C-alpha cells in the first residue's frame, strides 16, 4: 500500500516537486504539441503538393490518349470508363490509324500509381513509333516488334540492373480492317467480350506477357463484323475489385454477364450503369487496382 510522507519538511518538498513536475510537463507537452503541429503542417503541404502534381500528371496522361469523340469518327459508338486507383495509373487506351487499318488497344502496365503511369507513357510512345514504322497486317508481328522496341527502350542503360520488368503488359489489341469489315483480335492475359446479333462470344488472349526479353507466339482471332457489333475490352482491375457482401472479387464471369445484360442500352448509358455497379460492389473499401473498360460499337 502506498504510504504518505507525513513530515512537514518532506511535504513541503513534495509539493514543490509536484509543482515543478506540473510546470515542466506542461511546458514539455506544449512544445511537443507545437512540434506536432509544425510536422502536421509540413505533411499537409507535402500531401497537397503531391496531390496537385498527380492531378497535373493525370491531365498529361489523359491528353495523350484518344478521347471518345476521336474514336467516334471510326466507330458508331464508343465509351471509355477509366478509373486509376491513385489518380494516375498504368491502364491506358491506345489508338492508331494507318491506311485502312484502325488499331485500338486496352493496356494494363505492371503496377499502378506513378510507376504504372511512367511505364504507360513509355509504352504509348513505343506503340506509336512501331505502328508508324511497320506494316499493320499482323497483330503478332506488331506486338513482337513493340516488345523488342519497348525492351530496348527501357534497357538503354546497360550498367543499371535496378530495373527489371517482372511481367510487362496485359493487352487486348483490336485491328479493324474497314475495307474487309474484319476485326483481328490478339491479347495477352485479357479477355474481350464480343456481342453480335445478341450472341455473346468471349475472345481469350494468350497466357503470355508483352514487355519481356522473350515473347511467346501470339494468336490472332479473325472476325467478320457488321454494323451494331459491340466489343468490350477491359483490364483486370475491374474483375479483381474486392467487395460485395462477402468481400470477394467481382470475377470475370460476373463482369461479362453484367455487360451482356446491358447490350440494348447505348454505350454512354452503359457506362453510367457500369460505374454504379462497380462503386456499389466496392462500397467503402479501397479500389484494388486501376480500372479501364472500353466499349466499341461497329
Amino acid at each position, binding site marked *: 500500500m502506498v504510504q*504518505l*510522507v507525513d513530515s512537514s*519538511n*518532506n511535504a513541503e518538498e513534495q509539493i514543490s516537486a*509536484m509543482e515543478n*513536475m506540473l510546470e515542466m510537463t506542461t511546458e*514539455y507537452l506544449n512544445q511537443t504539441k507545437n512540434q506536432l503541429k509544425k510536422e502536421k503542417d509540413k505533411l499537409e503541404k507535402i500531401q497537397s503538393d503531391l496531390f496537385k502534381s498527380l492531378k497535373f500528371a493525370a491531365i498529361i496522361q489523359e491528353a495523350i490518349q484518344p478521347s471518345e469523340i476521336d474514336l467516334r469518327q471510326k466507330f458508331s459508338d464508343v465509351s471509355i470508363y477509366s478509373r486509376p486507383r491513385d489518380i494516375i495509373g498504368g491502364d491506358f487506351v491506345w489508338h492508331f490509324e494507318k491506311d485502312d487499318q484502325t488499331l485500338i488497344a486496352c493496356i494494363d502496365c505492371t503496377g499502378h500509381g506513378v510507376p504504372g503511369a511512367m511505364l504507360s507513357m513509355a509504352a504509348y510512345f513505343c506503340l506509336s513509333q512501331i505502328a508508324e514504322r511497320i506494316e499493320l497486317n499482323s497483330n503478332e508481328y506488331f506486338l513482337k516488334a513493340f516488345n523488342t522496341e519497348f525492351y530496348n527502350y527501357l534497357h538503354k542503360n546497360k550498367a543499371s540492373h535496378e530495373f527489371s520488368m517482372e511481367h510487362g503488359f496485359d493487352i487486348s489489341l483490336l485491328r479493324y480492317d474497314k475495307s474487309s469489315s474484319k476485326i483481328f483480335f490478339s491479347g495477352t492475359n485479357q479477355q474481350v467480350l464480343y456481342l453480335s446479333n445478341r450472341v455473346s462470344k468471349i475472345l481469350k488472349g494468350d497466357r503470355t506477357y508483352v514487355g519481356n526479353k522473350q515473347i511467346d507466339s501470339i494468336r490472332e482471332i479473325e472476325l467478320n463484323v457488321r454494323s451494331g457489333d459491340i466489343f468490350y475490352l477491359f483490364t483486370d482491375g475491374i474483375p479483381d475489385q474486392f467487395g460485395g457482401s462477402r468481400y470477394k472479387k467481382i470475377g470475370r464471369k460476373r463482369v461479362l454477364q453484367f455487360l451482356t445484360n446491358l447490350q440494348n442500352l447505348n454505350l454512354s448509358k452503359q457506362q453510367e450503369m457500369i460505374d454504379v455497379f462497380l462503386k456499389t460492389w466496392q462500397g467503402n473499401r479501397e479500389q484494388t487496382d486501376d480500372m479501364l473498360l472500353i466499349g466499341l460499337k461497329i
Partner: protein
Amino acid sequence: MNIEELNYLEKCEKVIEDDFFNAYLDKKNKAALCVCKQSYIPAEDFINSFNQIADILEKTRLESFIFDKRALRAFHQPTMEWYFVEWKNRIYNYGVNKHYKILPPQDWFADCVEAGKASILKNNPSFEFEKFNIKYCDSIIDAIE
C-alpha cells in the same frame, strides 16, 4: 504488486529496507531490484539509498537494475537528474547497463517522465542516453524475463 512478484521477491536477497525503498539482489539473474514504497521520496533519502545500492553493486557482478516506481506519484527533478547523469554512470562502471523500469499505470506520470528526460537532455546535452539499455516493463516478472 501481485502474488507472483511477491513470491519472486521472497526468493531474492534483501539488502536494503528503509522507509522509502526495499532493495534486493537476484544473483542468479544478475539483477538488482529497487522497489519504491512511498508516493514521494525526498531528495536526501533518495540519494542516500541509491548511494548505498551503488556501494553494493560495486562489490557484486550484476548486469541489470530493475526500478519499480509504481508507488511513486511525484519525483524531485534535480534528484532524477542526479540519478540519471551521475548514479547511472557510476553503476555503468560496475558493469550494470541494463535498466528496467516499471512506472505507475497513470498516463500523466509517463508524460512527466518524458518531460523529465527532455529536461535532463537539455541540461546535459552530452549525456549518452543510448549508452544505457533502458526498457519499460509492466511488472517485476516481465523485467526479469
